[in-house]
């Protein structure tokens, strides 16, 4: 109980970080899942949203809502622009697309710095959320708690949309078999563009709401991008539920992990990622190994039979 008491706050922080990263990474995994676009400019869209929150937000609810609308709209627009930009290289494989989006990320990052400045920005939070609440005798920032709630709502909504709705079925079908989707009367390109637009809006909106947690600075885009990539890879590309678990895990490693093993802090995230990948690939590598061994055994028997 003492242990829990001492680590409650970092653990909660981990959830808040994790939920924030989940909202960002969900967009990334969605875009990859439906269109095969590994969008390396996704972190830049988060940074843009965070800067917008810092610029527009003044501590009032109205301005927060406005910032959210502007951030989501800007994110959606960037998703649309991205869809147009990658269309010409759509058939040339993941690497070309990734390179293109990486270039867009570099240019976009520079534009953000030249427009918003190179300083780390502080973000005003509405007064009602500025204080702390008491949880089991500990003080915890109200904003982070509220954010956890909003992100959980978003996660639930996203899951429902993707897994339960017909639109979600269309997105998943496009991932699987664009030719079939076209035969149903849906343009795979429209589905693909819509997915990128929604993913962009998610990242922009996450930037606005997450700005007080992961604040806007010239490094924000890279940090968020790197963490999102880890989440998406560990949680399996294209899987929303996997991304949720991976995001919480990354959040906890970054907060609880640092408290528990401060000496190992710089290596924790990558160590955890390595372990996760090893454990997970076990299910793929081992059966394949067994299958190959069986084939070899059969061949060996056939050779022996032939020789006798």
């Amino acid at each position, binding site marked *: 109980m003492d242990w829990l008491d001492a680590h409650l706050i970092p653990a909660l922080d981990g959830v808040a970080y994790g939920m924030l990263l989940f909202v960002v990474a969900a967009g990334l995994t969605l875009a990859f899942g439906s269109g095969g676009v590994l969008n390396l400019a996704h972190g830049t869209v988060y940074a843009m949203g965070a800067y917008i929150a810092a610029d527009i937000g003044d501590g009032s609810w109205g301005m927060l809502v406005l910032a959210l609308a502007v951030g989501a709209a800007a994110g959606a627009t960037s998703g649309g622009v991205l869809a147009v930009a990658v269309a010409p290289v759509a058939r040339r494989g993941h690497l070309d697309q990734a390179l293109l989006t990486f270039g867009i990320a570099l240019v976009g990052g520079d534009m953000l710095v030249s427009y918003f400045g190179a300083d780390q920005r502080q973000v005003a939070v509405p007064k009602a959320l500025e204080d702390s609440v008491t949880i089991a005798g500990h003080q915890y920032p109200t904003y982070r708690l509220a954010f956890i709630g909003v992100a959980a709502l978003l996660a639930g909504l996203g899951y429902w949309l993707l897994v339960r709705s*017909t639109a979600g*079925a*269309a997105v*998943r*079908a496009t991932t*699987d*078999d664009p*030719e*079939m*989707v*076209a*035969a*149903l*009367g*849906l*343009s*795979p390109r429209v589905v693909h563009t819509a997915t990128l637009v929604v993913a962009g809006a998610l990242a922009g909106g996450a930037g606005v709401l997450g700005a007080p947690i992961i604040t806007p600075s010239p490094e924000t885009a890279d940090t968020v991008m790197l963490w999102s990539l880890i989440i998406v890879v560990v949680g399996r590309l294209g899987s929303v539920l996997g991304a949720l678990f991976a995001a919480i895990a990354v959040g906890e490693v970054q907060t609880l992990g640092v408290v528990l093993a401060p000496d190992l802090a710089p290596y924790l995230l990558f160590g955890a990622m390595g372990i996760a990948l090893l454990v997970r690939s076990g299910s793929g590598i081992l059966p394949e190994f067994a299958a190959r061994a069986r084939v070899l055994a059969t061949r060996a028997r056939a050779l022996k039979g032939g020789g006798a």
Partner: protein
Amino acid sequence: MTDLLTVTELTRSYGSFVALDRADLTVAEGARHALIGPNGAGKTTLLNLIAGTDLATSGRIAFAGRDITWQRPHRRSRGGIARTFQHPSVVPVATVLDNVLLGAWHHHTAAPWRRAGRRRIADDCRAILETVGLTGLEHRQAGELSHGRRRMLDLAVALAGRPRLLLLDEPAAGLTDADVTVLLAVLRDLSDDVAVLLVEHNLDVVAAFARTVTVLHHGRPLVTGTPAEIQADPAVREAYLGRRKVAETA
């Protein structure tokens, strides 16, 4: 009967290989039309060109009086051309009902943003699932279905689009005899508003279903007629027998 689909001098070549060579074909409204021919005769190529999955090298395709030669496949689908694939194409990670709903999405007159509209679409989709014998499996994942049932689901998805022309690419392939009986019953019960163009190797299915048969050979239509006429045609016998001789010497 008027012509629903007119294919004129349609050619598709892949490099130096000519899969379809200036082919002409007409499909009448409400037709029960089968395309047969030896392997590599261009049957699936022709079907793909009509559906828009593939684009022609030259020639013209007209559907319901409009030139659709260069129309994108989803536009053709909305215009009333539905198809099934040689390998039954369903979304394995979605439920059976969701698959059919996807097929109905762009074709239904009911408003999907209204609760009543959604219910009507879902009711229609359930009715279609009943005709293909998949009632009770609505909430199963499509990927869990057996091959035969996946075929029937593929057909249900195509029917949900309320097509005027239904293209079926070897619907009986890989089906058990019992499944083929179900398939034939479903096809026989189709409304006369739907024309069917069928590519099929199983000649029993062709004989039981088609009223018109076109034989393709080396990318060109050899002859068109009723099943009885086709069976008696010497040129058809030669096309098939010639192939058998080649197969025997190989």
